[in-house]
C-alpha cells in the first residue's frame, strides 16, 4: 500500500473548470447558470468561483474548460466589444459578442481548450443564447449546455425544456439542472450562480450548495410512471416492433 505523494496530486496542473454551464432563453430574456468548482487535478482550487463573466452591460458569457484560456479569451472579447460599442455608438448585440468569441476560438483552435456559452439581451433580437464549443463553431439555440457536467443533462433538457417559459420557470429549470449535474459529475460542485438578463437589466443570484437537492429521493418526480400506473392508467402506449 503506498501513500499518494504530493507529486501525484500535481498542484501545478493547469487549472481546469470541469464544469456545468447552462444558458436558457425565456419569453423576454435569458437565464445563464453555472456551478462554482475550479479544479487542479483532483484538488478543488476554488470552490466558489464565478464562471459567468460580464462582457458588456447586456451580454455575459459562461466559461468552461481551461480556466486560463477562457479568462484570457473573455478579457480580449470584452476589450474588443468595448471598442466596438464606442465606434458603433450603441450597445453591442449578442450576435456580435458571439462572433468575436468565435473568431478567437476558431482561429486559435489548436492552442485553446475552452467551451463558452454567450447569452444576453439586445433591442433587435431580444434574449439570445449562442453556444461556442471546443472547435469554435457557433450554434444559436433556444438553450445551450456545456462543460463536463452537461453530459448528464441532455436527456433532462429534452424532457424539461419548453418554449415560452416565464422568467421564474426558466430560472428554476436552470437551478434544478445545475444541481442534478453537480450531484452526478465529480468535476462540478459548490454553489449555483445564475444571471438573468432582460430589457430591464441584469440580476445575479446565488444558491448555496447545501440548499440544493442532492439525489433522486430528494427530487420531485416528473410524469413518473409509478404515479401514472398508481392512478389506474395503463401507462404509455406500448411500442410497435
Amino acid at each position, binding site marked *: 500500500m503506498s501513500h499518494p505523494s*504530493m507529486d501525484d*496530486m500535481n*498542484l*501545478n496542473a*493547469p*487549472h481546469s473548470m470541469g464544469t456545468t454551464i447552462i444558458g436558457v432563453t425565456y419569453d423576454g430574456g435569458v437565464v445563464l447558470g453555472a456551478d462554482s468548482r*475550479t479544479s*487542479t487535478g483532483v*484538488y478543488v*482550487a*476554488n470552490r*466558489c*468561483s464565478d464562471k459567468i463573466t460580464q462582457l458588456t452591460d447586456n451580454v455575459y458569457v459562461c466559461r468552461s474548460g*481551461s*480556466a*486560463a484560456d477562457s*479568462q*484570457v479569451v473573455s478579457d*480580449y472579447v470584452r476589450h474588443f466589444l468595448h471598442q466596438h460599442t464606442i465606434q458603433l455608438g450603441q450597445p453591442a448585440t449578442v450576435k456580435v459578442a458571439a462572433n468575436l468569441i468565435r*473568431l*478567437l476560438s476558431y*482561429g*486559435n483552435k*489548436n*492552442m485553446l481548450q475552452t467551451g463558452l456559452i454567450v447569452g444576453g439581451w439586445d433591442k433587435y433580437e431580444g434574449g439570445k443564447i449562442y453556444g461556442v464549443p471546443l472547435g469554435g463553431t457557433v450554434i444559436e439555440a433556444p438553450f445551450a449546455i456545456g462543460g463536463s457536467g452537461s453530459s448528464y443533462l441532455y436527456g433532462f433538457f429534452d424532457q424539461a425544456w419548453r418554449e415560452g417559459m416565464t422568467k421564474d420557470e426558466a430560472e428554476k429549470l436552470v437551478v434544478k439542472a445545475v444541481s442534478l449535474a453537480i450531484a452526478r459529475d465529480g468535476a462540478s460542485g459548490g454553489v449555483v450562480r445564475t444571471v438573468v438578463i432582460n430589457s430591464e437589466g441584469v440580476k445575479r443570484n446565488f444558491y448555496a450548495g447545501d440548499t440544493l437537492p442532492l439525489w433522486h429521493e430528494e427530487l420531485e418526480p416528473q410524469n413518473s410512471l409509478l404515479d401514472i400506473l398508481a392512478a389506474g392508467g395503463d401507462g404509455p402506449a406500448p411500442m410497435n416492433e
Partner: protein
Amino acid sequence: MSKLAMDVPPKGGFSFDLCKRNAMLAKDGVQLPPFRKTGTTIVGLIYQDGVVLGADTRATEGPIVADKNCEKIHYLAPNIYCCGAGTAADTEAVTDMVSAQLQLHRYHTGRESRVVTALTYLKRHLFSYQGHVSAALVLGGVDFTGPHLHTIYPHGSTDTLPYATMGSGSLAAMAIFESKYKEGLTRDEGVQLVTEAICAGIFNDLGSGSNVDICVITKGSKEYLRNHLQPNPRTYVTPKEYTFSKKTEVLSTLVTTLKERVEVVEAGDKMEE
C-alpha cells in the same frame, strides 16, 4: 528571411510560432530542461482592516534544502506584496519585473498602484508563456478600492478569494483555513490564523519548513514581519571549535596613491557651430 516577414500583414490575437519551434526541437530529440520544483507553503487572507500574507522560508533543490531562510514574500508596490511558490528564479524574476512595471505605471498615472493592475500584468505575462514560467502566486494588497487577495496559477488563470493557499503545503494550510476562517477577523486573529496555517505546512509537508514570514497590509501602512515565528531553531551545535589551516602570510604592504595627470579647466569656452 526578414523580407518574408515584412510582406505578411500582422495578424491580431495570439502568436504561437514558438510552439511550432518547440515541437520541432522535441522531434529532433532535444529535451526541455528539467525544472526545480520548490516546495512551499504560502497563504493569504483578508481580515477586517486589510490583508495578511504568510510564507514559510525553505528553498529546496530536489531533496536538499538549498536555503533555510529565504524570503518568499516579494515587494511589488508600497501597498502590494506577493508570495511566490514554484521555481524560485521564476517567482523572483516575474515579481521584480512587475514591480518595475508598476513603478513606471505610477509615474504615468500619478496614482497609487491598484492590486488589479499587478494582477493583470502578472496574468498576461504568465499566460503568454503557457505555463512554462512556473510561478504560482498569492497576490495581496490594499488600494483605494479596498483590500484584495488573488491567486495566480502558472498557466495564467486567476481567482479572487477571501482566503487562499498555494504551494506543496497548500492542502495542509487550507485545512486550517477552512476550519477556522471567518469574516471580520482582527489583526491579531488574522496573524494567528496565518501563522497556524503556515505551521501546518511546515510540519506536515516535506517541501516546506524553517520559519514563518508574515506581511500585514492595511490602508496606508504595511508591516513586514520577517521570521515572525521560528519554530525550528538550531538546537545542537558541535562543542568542538572549528579550526582553519594557516592563511597566506602578508610579508609587506606598499600603497601608491593615484597621481593627477590631467588639468581640469572649470570654465571653458562655449562650443560654437
